[in-house]
């Protein structure tokens, strides 16, 4: 297990976030750092124990390999002192790990600190909804939080089991029908961090991804202010205006909310979809090209997608893309 020790610092090095953006080894919150402390202690003991077993085996293989003329072994049946020793030694090591483990369990599962920002994370097949009940903001796939302020998350599901996980922020927590699960953390670094669903939830489980944007408090306030404004109705003669008309007259409204336009709740709230950096449950960057490809055939892009292929013409897709990208 020495290779583990050699590799870990490299993985935890400063390039980790760039090369491995979804890593668990580069904690960016108090919660994730508390876990990292436990992990490092475990890796130490794992390395010690494995080195001992491997070394002992190698010594045995060299020392006691049968050679011509080597004597018949003594028939030793056991040794009470040794048995006691190698029962107690692991017990001591386990105690050294168990005590901080239990302390960390109670610390990280306590009630969230006062003044926490409350967020509901709701899993859907196959995208995440984020709802800020105190701010009156609802968004999808992309979660925004301010740096330095405790975030208290309620984890829920609209259909089957999911699991909520931003590795940089800490451990995962399952979304279970009929349950509201909780976690809290305080992000200590600004930036964007990928996450994804980690409980198998059906055919497109692999396509249920998300992004966390940790912003400076004033930037976060600005984002909230933008999200709270209703979207402007585009000029009816523009391409976006044609898209708006098409949206209101077609099946879109049954599933999607656009504040002041429609009230569907099956799919993501699109009120500010143009301001997001990702679409389709986080599998594509939000560019006009990808949005176009998505609208042309959602189940072809994301197998099992509840959004059907609406059979839109190319012109209709262009109009809708113009409208949706205008929803900043």
């Amino acid at each position, binding site marked *: 297990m020495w290779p583990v020790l050699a590799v870990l610092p490299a993985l935890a090095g400063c390039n980790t976030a760039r090369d491995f953006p979804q890593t668990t080894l580069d904690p960016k919150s108090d919660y994730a750092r508390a876990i990292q402390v436990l992990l490092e202690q475990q890796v130490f003991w794992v390395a010690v124990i494995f080195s001992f077993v491997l070394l002992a085996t190698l010594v045995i293989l060299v020392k006691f*390999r049968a050679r011509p003329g080597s004597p018949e072994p003594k028939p030793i*049946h056991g040794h009470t002192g040794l048995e006691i020793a190698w029962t107690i030694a692991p017990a001591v090591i386990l105690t050294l790990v168990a005590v901080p483990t239990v302390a960390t*369990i109670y610390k990280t599962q306590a009630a969230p600190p006062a003044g926490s920002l409350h967020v509901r994370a709701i899993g859907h097949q196959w995208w995440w909804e984020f709802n800020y009940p105190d701010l009156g903001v609802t968004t999808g796939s992309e979660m925004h939080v301010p740096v330095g302020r405790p975030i208290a998350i309620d984890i829920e599901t609209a259909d*089957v089991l999911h699991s909520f996980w931003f590795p940089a922020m800490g451990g995962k927590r399952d979304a279970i029908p009929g349950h509201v699960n909780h976690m809290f953390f305080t992000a200590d670094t600004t930036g964007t961090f990928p996450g994804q669903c980690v409980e198998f939830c059906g055919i497109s489980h692999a396509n249920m991804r998300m992004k966390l944007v940790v912003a400076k408090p004033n930037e976060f306030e600005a984002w909230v202010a933008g999200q709270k404004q209703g979207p402007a109705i585009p000029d009816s003669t523009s391409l976006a205006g044609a898209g708006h008309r098409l949206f209101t007259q077609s099946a879109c409204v049954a599933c999607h909310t656009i504040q002041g336009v429609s009230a569907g709740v099956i799919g993501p709230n699109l009120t500010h979809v143009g301001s997001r950096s990702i679409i389709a449950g986080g599998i594509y960057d939000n560019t006009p090209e990808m949005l176009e490809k998505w609208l042309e055939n959602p189940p072809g892009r994301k197998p099992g997608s509840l959004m059907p292929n609406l059979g839109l013409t190319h012109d209709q897709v262009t109009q809708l893309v113009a409208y949706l990208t205008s929803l900043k």
Partner: protein
Amino acid sequence: MATTAATLHAPAHAEPSGLWSWITTVDHKRIGALYGITAFCFFLIGGFEALLIRIQLIRPDNTFVSPDVYNQLFTMHATTMIFLAVMPLSASFFNFLIPLMIGARDVAFPRLNAFSYWVFLFGAIFINLSFVFGGAPDVGWFGYANLTSKQFSPGHGVDFWAVGLQILGVASLAAAFNFIVTILNLRAPGMRLMRMPVFVWMTLVTSFLIILAFPVITVALIFLLFDRFIGTHFFIPSAGADPLLWQHLFWLFGHPEVYILILPAMGIVSEVLPTFSRKPLFGYPVIVYSGIFIGFMGWGVWSHHMFSVGLGPLADSFFALSTMLIAIPTGVKIFNWLATMWGGRLELKTPMLFAIGFIILFTMGGLSGFMHASPPADLQQTDTYFVVAHIHYVLFGGAIMGIFAGLYYWFPKMTGRMMNDRLGKVHFWLQLVAMNLTFFPMHFVGLLGMPRRVYTYGANLGFNEMNFWSTIGALLLAPAILIFVYNWITSWRSGPPAGNDPWGGATLEWAIPSPPPSYNFGTIPEVHSLDPLWHKDSRELVLASNHVHGHIHMPPNSYWPFLGALGMAMMMSGMVFGWFVGIPGLLLMLLGFYNWAFEPCH
């Protein structure tokens, strides 16, 4: 070893051959062979499924298989390896070895034994028929509710899975009861419990785990089948159910199941190490008690599969501590195995290499298990490739390496011929390297954030290179296994004769001819020590068991267990196929059971 004299006393016995003799056999050795060959075929099928999985993951956004097929593959890979490969391979060893090791002529219920095998075979075929009847199960081998409900899984895959596991459960339960009764009642005179070989002990513990664990999954599967077929609401949240009930029931079965998979391999290794160290097992009673303790503690750790569920700090702490406690007897076993080799004269034949490989690889699996015994750490590791690495070090590095050690070790006893040791070593080294190349990078790709059970992954997350090497490793595992298959077939046909005791073993099976006669022992041996063949006086006594005195009564062949098993499998599969299969199955089963019960035993 001077065994030729004893061999001369064994009367010539003409074994009947042909298909009919195999369908009607009640000989534990033949049933062991049937189990072994069938299970190994499923091991190859499960391995092929794994290869397809790895090819799909060789690069990001690959389209080698569709997501739908991928989900079927990982579900069937785990289901196949656990229920159709490792468990029945263990059952193959139980069948072949237990009567030989305890000095008995057969198991306690030979026809029940045949019935177990046929039920297993039909259940295994049934569950795989799903591939041609509209799609295999695609909800994971753990089948978490409520994804398994009609609403979210409308196809028949889940039905095949649930009914198939029920059929297989009947086979496992019947076999487990059989071995408990056999071990407790049919031991040769003088073989007290604490003189039983460790493999017999581990079989006993495993059998108790099976009879206690399978009823739990049976109940859970009945709930699920009721939900799907008659509209009950055991796992339907919209009707007020808590889908967590499934997880508790599943893991209350599922964790003991892990020990059902690994304890037999530990038993095998405990037999192989002393033989090739020329030294008795170090700390025999401690190894036995550790195995029993692991079996007991296996019931108190199930929620460590559920740390991310949110059971609260008290439950998380309890299950963390109980899980860590299991590390102690596991560690003690490893130290005792090392101490067995210490001071020995190690003959590094193929079985010994696999046993030593087991120790190292299982230790690695145990240590990664110790890492996720800590719930906060586990919350970063669970449902990622780190856990995939862990279970494969435990089940491939542990159970499969142990099983290969046993296959090489007892091949001479099973066939009367030696396997090619040089090819065996090539197999070992290639498998060791390929296995580590496949699974070691998974530790890192998991810690770097790659979830398990995903048919694809983003290209920009840094997972690409490690997945590539894992796939290369898997592609190298295939030839390693094929070398074994080649070695097995050619050695069976034309390997050099093995004699009674090619390795100088200590236990009873090495006293009798290879392959053993249908009645095993001409007279039942008397046992006076733990290693009867290694002590001068007891050795003479045991070798005398090859003398036949008078008539040996053996149970006659019967086809009723086969028909009863076929009928039962048809009856249960009627839940999926319809009454026109179910009703004839019921009648056939009743016919088989009735005639089985009243068949004269002479």
